[in-house]
């Protein structure tokens, strides 16, 4: 496994260089995982991207570096301690470092010779390909995805120049990911929505969720989706509900602050029984918090958001394949149960890219609303049924009226204050939970069956926790396992209840300050964790960090 960091100021082209490099590494067969760490600014500051690659599955980042690509002095100063003794620091000859690991390249002279001052990123790509023993086979194909046609030749030349001025340091290892996809979590989620037949997406720009709106907008014409930038998040969610009521599959996305504005409408989806998918790409709060960083602190919030009581499902996406398939499932559940489904992602997963097996469209299934009413008696939008699910017709598609009301209502959908109707309608809506619970997905079990210490987590810590269990079991074989929740509300409790019997220690690993999952497990499974690893500095925990903290803090 190799790990490199590209760092510099905002505006220096780190993003593009990293995007080209990760794709080239993927094309040569490696598993790749790329994390973007950037500040909430357009120019300046210190930004970096970590690209980790190898022939074993990689689903999280690490700060132990084999190589550093420094576009400015600050990057060398901050990150040189993370570079291994055998590693390298690739930089321009103007960078003032006397580190023995430095490979200084006169980018200025090479660029001048090529005739364009803006090709230093491509020179660096060439240097890296050579250092890691790669060939140049995919360079022109990949460059054509990221560089304008008129600049392709000049950039190929720059890659070649970089390739030719260094010697190979590492061995190329054959991998199987050449034909896999590499994409960000937010792109995977967006693709899931498209595959599920999304027709309408409304949102207000908010980091780190905006990339979903941008990707959907880019593909909107091909996919037949109206993407509407709303005047605010309240409008965005009410638009999604209006579109869904009228028969267009709809989603809205935001981060915690925008979700706070959508709260009342969540209840409208619940009470009026209108399918809705809401994505919350979490970032650290409260309020503006750390806009471009990561946290898992909205769990309790989205579970309880909105006044009153109504059924909802919260799904935390754990990795890139999950982001795709669980989004499809969210649409299916929303339509089937006519409820709001909340997808919890976060900045880490949303912005990180990873190699993943091409998504399988034959696995896509999404329920449809009813097309006609052929039951007994007149059509009633909120008809009492055994399972609480009333047939949902689309207005204008049949000779039946489709009513919808945020007041408590009768089966016809008319306002009522009848105590008897109120009870029956509440029972009807809450009854849907019985069926929902039957199709909840238990958490993924990772590690050794003979474990004595059980880690528990949810969402994007799946990758780091998986790696931590591997590291820990390598040290103490057969000692560690983990449960990582995807479906998180209602909380599936079978697995945790069974595994808790065997566990000497139960350690919750969460990116928040209060241990929100641990609280849910206590509430719904009656099981108390024995210790907690919590992190809330806006930076995702690594597998190494979890393993280290477990070794130090948990008595085995």
């Amino acid at each position, binding site marked *: 496994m190799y790990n490199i960091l590209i760092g510099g100021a905002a505006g220096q082209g780190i993003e593009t260089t990293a995007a080209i490099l990760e794709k080239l590494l993927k094309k040569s067969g490696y598993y790749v995982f790329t994390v973007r760490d950037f500040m909430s600014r357009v120019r300046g500051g210190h930004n970096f991207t970590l690209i980790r690659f190898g022939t074993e599955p990689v689903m999280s980042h690490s700060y132990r570096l084999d190589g550093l690509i420094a576009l400015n002095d600050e990057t060398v100063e901050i990150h040189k301690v993370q570079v291994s003794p055998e590693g390298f620091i690739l930089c321009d000859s103007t960078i003032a470092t006397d580190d023995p690991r430095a490979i200084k390249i006169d980018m200025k002279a090479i660029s001048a010779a090529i005739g364009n001052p803006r090709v230093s990123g491509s020179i660096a790509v060439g240097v890296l390909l050579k250092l890691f023993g790669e060939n140049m086979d995919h360079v022109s194909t990949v460059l054509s995805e990221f560089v304008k046609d008129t600049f392709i030749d000049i950039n190929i030349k720059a890659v070649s120049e970089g390739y030719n001025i260094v010697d190979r340091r590492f061995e190329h290892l054959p991998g199987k990911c050449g*034909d*896999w*996809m*590499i*994409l960000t979590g937010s*792109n995977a989620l967006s*693709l899931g929505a*498209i*595959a599920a*037949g999304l*027709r*309408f997406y*409304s949102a207000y720009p908010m980091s780190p969720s905006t990339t979903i709106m941008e990707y959907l907008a880019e593909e*909107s*014409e*091909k*996919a*037949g*989706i*109206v993407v*509407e930038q*709303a*005047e*605010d998040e*309240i*409008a965005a969610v*009410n*638009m*999604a*509900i*209006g*579109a*869904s*009521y*009228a*028969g*267009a599959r*709809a989603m809205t996305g935001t981060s915690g602050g925008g979700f706070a504005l959508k709260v*009342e*409408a969540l209840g*409208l989806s619940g009470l009026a029984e209108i399918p809705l998918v809401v994505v919350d790409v979490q970032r650290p709060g409260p309020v503006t918090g750390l806009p471009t960083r990561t946290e898992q602190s909205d769990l309790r919030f989205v579970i309880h958001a909105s006044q009153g009581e109504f059924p909802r499902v919260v799904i935390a996406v754990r990795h890139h394949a999950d982001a795709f398939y669980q989004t499809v499932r969210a649409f299916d559940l929303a339509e089937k149960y006519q409820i709001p489904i909340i997808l919890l992602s976060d900045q880490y997963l949303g912005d990180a890219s990873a190699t993943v097996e*091409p*998504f399988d*469209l034959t696995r896509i299934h999404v329920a449809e609303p009813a097309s006609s009413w052929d039951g007994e008696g007149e059509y009633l939008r909120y008809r009492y049924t055994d399972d609480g699910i009333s047939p949902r017709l*689309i*207005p*204008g598609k*049949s*000779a*039946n*009226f*489709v*009513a*919808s*009301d*945020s*007041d408590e209502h009768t089966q016809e*959908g*008319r*306002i009522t204050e009848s105590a008897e109707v109120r009870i029956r309608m509440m029972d009807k809506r809450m009854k849907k939970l019985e069926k929902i619970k039957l199709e909840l997905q238990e958490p993924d079990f990772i590690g050794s069956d003979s474990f004595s210490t059980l880690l528990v987590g949810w969402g994007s810590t799946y990758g780091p926790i998986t790696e931590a269990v591997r590291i820990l079991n390598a040290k103490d074989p057969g000692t560690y396992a983990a449960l990582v929740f995807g479906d998180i509300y209602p909380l599936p409790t079978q697995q945790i209840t069974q595994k808790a019997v065997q566990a000497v220690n139960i350690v919750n690993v969460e990116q928040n300050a209060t241990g929100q999952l641990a609280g849910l497990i206590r509430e719904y499974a009656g099981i108390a964790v024995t210790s907690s690893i919590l992190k809330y500095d806006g930076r995702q925990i690594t597998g190494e960090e979890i393993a280290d903290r477990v070794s130090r803090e948990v008595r085995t």
Partner: protein
Amino acid sequence: MSTASFTTYDTAWCPGCGNFSILDCLKTALTELGKDPYEVLMVAGIGQAAKTPQYISANNFCGLHGRSLPAAVAAKIANEKLTVIVDTGDGDSYGEGGNHFIHNIRRNVNITHFVHDNQIYGLTKGQASPTSIEGLITPVQVSGNMNTPLNPPLLAIAAGAGFVARGFSGNKAHLISLMKQAIEFDGYALVDILQPCVSFNKVNTFTYYNSRVYELDEAYDPSNKVSALEKSMEFGDRIPIGVIYREDKPSFHRKNMILKDGIPLLDKKTDPSVVQQMIDSFI
């Protein structure tokens, strides 16, 4: 002409409320336009006027207070074949929903917006609304409303609305005509309807409006924006009713790249081969 196909059950309105005549006019307008009730969608938020969709046989969506416009425009975006009418009050439209009012004018989706403007909050029993006159004493504005009343037609024209009218619930023939023109207009159309609240507004009564309103005649040119702005500011001893401003311009559906082809959004299908291409582009 019988409006029976749009008629439904009893209302929760006060006897003598202007809402009754507005509801009558609406049913007549829809009937005279030959609308199929199953293709009509009535949208409202919350309030006394916002109960109108409950009292007419059509599809209805009574959502959140202030949020009727976003839901309505999205329903129209989803299915262009629906005749979408937002029928609600001044608090819902201009107070809680003020931001949506401004921005949906800009969006110009082909929906009709009828505002029952009684210059008071009815359902919550008599507090000042955005259009309440200065000095109006209420249980909350105990020493009189201090805020400048909002002028909806003036704001709508300034924000770029293509159809702006003012009506009066006491002049039904005129209101029916306005409603029909507004429904037929391709784009966002606002009709601000002056309406007495018999229970809570003792100043802007039927007599108050009736003695002040006058119909704009043929001599008035609604296509002149500057004179329309001036006309919309006439709100005192004399209040003009009629189409104050009219400008034909492409509606949302005619401009939107996805909807331009005229196929309703909800009837579009996702082509798996297109999704497969998207997947392949990440390989």
